[in-house]
């Protein structure tokens, strides 16, 4: 399966989706104006991955800035991961947030509230 590897920029997150190495990661800023266009290939990748997922899928999210259009796109990704879980596979969302950033902590809690996936909320020390 194709590997997606995007380097982070000022307004777009760094993304690694690598089935073979069992590494799934989103980090940095997600502020694209057209979140639909940016996340479309990511959603398609998860559609493909869902057909034959790994035994355990751990998604690491370590985001600094998130615009609302990206939140909606992340919600769509979580919906796809929910289907993987419903098919009997083991999944875990690791939501990392800066210990001083109560807003980003809250975003993680809100996702946790509305998505039927196990979340681990992990704070990290500020720079």
């Amino acid at each position, binding site marked *: 399966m194709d590997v997606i590897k995007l380097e982070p920029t*000022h*307004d777009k997150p760094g993304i690694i989706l690598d089935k073979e190495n069992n590494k799934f990661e989103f980090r940095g800023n997600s*502020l694209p*104006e*057209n*979140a*639909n*266009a940016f996340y479309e290939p990511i959603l398609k990748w998860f559609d493909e991955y869902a057909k034959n997922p790994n035994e355990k899928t751990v998604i690491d999210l370590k985001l600094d*800035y*998130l*615009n*609302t*259009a990206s*939140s*909606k*796109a992340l*919600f769509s990704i979580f919906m796809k991961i929910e289907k993987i879980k419903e098919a009997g596979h083991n999944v875990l969302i690791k939501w990392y947030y*800066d210990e*001083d*950033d*109560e*807003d*980003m902590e*809250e975003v993680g809690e*809100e996702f946790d*509230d*509305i998505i039927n996936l196990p979340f681990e909320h992990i704070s990290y020390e*500020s720079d």
Partner: protein
Amino acid sequence: MIESSLAEIFYKEFVDKDRIKMFYNGAVTHNITDAFTSQLEFEFKNYHYNKVVKKRVFNIMVEILQNISKHSAINSKNNNTGYGTFALYNDKKEFVILSANIINNKQKNILDKNLNLIVNTPRNELRELYKNKLIKGRISKKGGAGLGFIDISKRASEKIEFDFIEFKPKQIIFLIKIRVKKF
């Protein structure tokens, strides 16, 4: 409600130049949003405010500018370029973000309804409103998720203020003012 006229609100503030941190009037493109947010990030490095405060101002600025570029009624076709006015003031105790753009009657009716719902929702219930919108809302063709003003309200220290000013037939100036306390 914002009581002053658009000209008063923006230009009266110019008298006290120290308060103005950023001001822009014109086409809001992705590059403009990028430039302003990069500059804000750079300037904030020298401020000792709470990190959350800085991030709130940054996030609100992104939502406001992307809103203008997507939804201003005066825009170039097939392009995310809208025309509007944006200012960031630096007061002693708070940051104030002010923006204005032209909308049409249909947009006014939708915004008026949505914003009244948001300002009349108690702060502790905004989270529920946000979550409901996230579940039910669909991303529009222009990429907006309809979540922006709820998100802004959650980050703002006071209720957001907004107003609609008749400009020309079928054109209305939509004004919004957001405050973020520094401490």
